[in-house]
């Protein structure tokens, strides 16, 4: 791995973000990334965070039109409440702060604690849980669906709404709407290696793949003999469509897990479009790249988000962050 010591990878990366992005204030000591002009007068503060290892999510999505702050935890470990409390204080302009939380037990618990503590400090806080991964059965027998690729859609669209000056309840409602209309499915062709462990998180012989993986190097729901890009798109898009049944056009995120070349991702994007056309699902926009990653895992995920005209307008609105940037 390209690193110094495993204990410092997150701090080292934050130093690099500070060096590369003068528009961000990176508090390495306290693990908080805030846009330089925060708090933005009259604007709801948008805050997210989670374990590191998913870059550019979340720190790379801080900036005008998206997040006001991000709280990176250790690799694959939710941040601690202190981080969110500090970030909330930094971005609150008096209009309140919205926490965007991926649905993992650790994230849920730490953000919940932070919400209470921030409210104790007089900050108005609301939270929205992102839970889009259809590979996980949503029942009382699981921790519920994981939050994966839809996080990008939620952060972008809610960010645009906040940017327009929408009040907290409205930004929260829009974020909930995006979550409700988004579904994902991921596959791994090779596991990832965490700095702390230093070896692959699971064994996956060449010639096999894992269907239904998340973004934390966990094994998936099922192991299969290697499939073609065509076959994988069939399975992934079918899993998503079966659950989502969109009647409106969709945003498509063809997301790389980290080590899959863009060349392959684009080929996979073509297959995803093929299946969508076969299933008569209209495509509004397509984004292809490494956005919600799992360190150096090879593989990809597909996220669809059904959008009406308003959500599409918010998606197209200008955004200016290290990881997503257009329209300005």
């Amino acid at each position, binding site marked *: 791995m390209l690193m110094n010591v495993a204990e410092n990878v997150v701090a080292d990366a934050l130093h690099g973000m500070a060096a590369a992005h003068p528009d961000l204030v990176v508090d390495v000591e306290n693990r908080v990334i805030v846009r330089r002009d925060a708090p933005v007068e009259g604007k709801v503060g948008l805050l997210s965070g989670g374990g590191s290892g998913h870059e550019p999510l979340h720190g790379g999505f801080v900036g005008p039109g998206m997040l006001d702050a991000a709280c990176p935890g250790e690799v694959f470990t939710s941040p601690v409440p202190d981080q969110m409390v500090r970030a909330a204080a930094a971005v609150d302009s008096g209009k309140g702060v919205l926490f965007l939380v991926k649905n993992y037990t650790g994230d849920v618990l730490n953000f919940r604690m932070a919400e209470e503590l921030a409210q104790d400090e007089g900050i108005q806080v609301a939270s929205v849980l992102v839970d889009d991964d259809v590979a996980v*059965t949503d029942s009382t027998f699981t*921790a519920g669906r994981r939050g994966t690729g839809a996080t990008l859609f939620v952060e972008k669209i809610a960010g645009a709404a906040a940017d327009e000056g929408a009040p907290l309840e409205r930004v929260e409602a829009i974020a909930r709407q995006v979550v409700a209309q988004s579904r994902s499915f991921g596959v791994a062709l090779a596991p990832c290696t965490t700095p702390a462990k230093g070896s692959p998180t699971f064994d996956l012989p060449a010639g096999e793949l894992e269907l239904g993986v998340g973004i934390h190097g966990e*094994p998936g729901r099922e192991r299969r003999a290697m499939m073609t890009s065509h076959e994988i798109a069939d399975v992934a898009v079918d899993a998503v469509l079966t659950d989502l049944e969109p009647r409106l056009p969709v945003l498509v995120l063809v997301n790389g897990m980290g080590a899959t070349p863009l060349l392959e991702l684009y080929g996979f994007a073509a297959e995803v479009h093929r299946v969508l056309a076969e299933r008569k699902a209209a495509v509004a926009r397509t984004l292809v790249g490494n956005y919600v990653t799992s360190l150096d895992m090879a593989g990809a995920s597909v996220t669809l988000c059904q959008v009406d005209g308003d959500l599409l307008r918010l998606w197209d609105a200008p955004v200016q962050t290290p990881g997503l940037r257009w329209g300005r």
Partner: protein
Amino acid sequence: MSASALDAAFFVRWMTASAASVNREADRLTELDSAIGDADHGSNMRRGFAAVAKALEAEPPATPGAVLMAAGRQLVSTVGGASGPLYGTLLRRTGKALGDAEQVSVDELRAGLRAGVDAVGQLGGAAPGDKTMLDALDPAVDALATSFGAAAAAADEGARATVPMQARKGRASYLGERSIGHQDPGATSSALLFATLAEVAG
């Protein structure tokens, strides 16, 4: 100090010794978490208890309750993940239940831990049988009625009993039936904490 009167120093020794045992077993905890989780439980526990030991050394609290509350706060502020708030809550609630007594009896500790373990269940929404730390914590607290050694043995047995279980809470639940056949990392670290308690108690 009589066998049944535990003072602040005893709890500091428990926490410090826990930092050592967690550090020693970190790789194994991570390995277990790698099979059905995200391979960070060992480093999470190591980071958290190292902070606990450091904080207690720097400013040793005067009562058992204060020791556990300070330790719990450190865990909440340094661990993250699921285990940070859960273990943090365990220790803080236990400490709170112990009040500001200078010494506590084993029975008072057992009652305190019961409150702590119940708080963990409430916070995480899990029950014994869900393949979590509760499967070690819950029987351990009951067995403390007998002895520290019995508690440690019950925790260990509880941890080993998670192997055939299918996870219903935490990350391992995503795996469905594939979670069967692996020991839960959190139950294993809980057993480690009770083993350390028994050692410290002599």
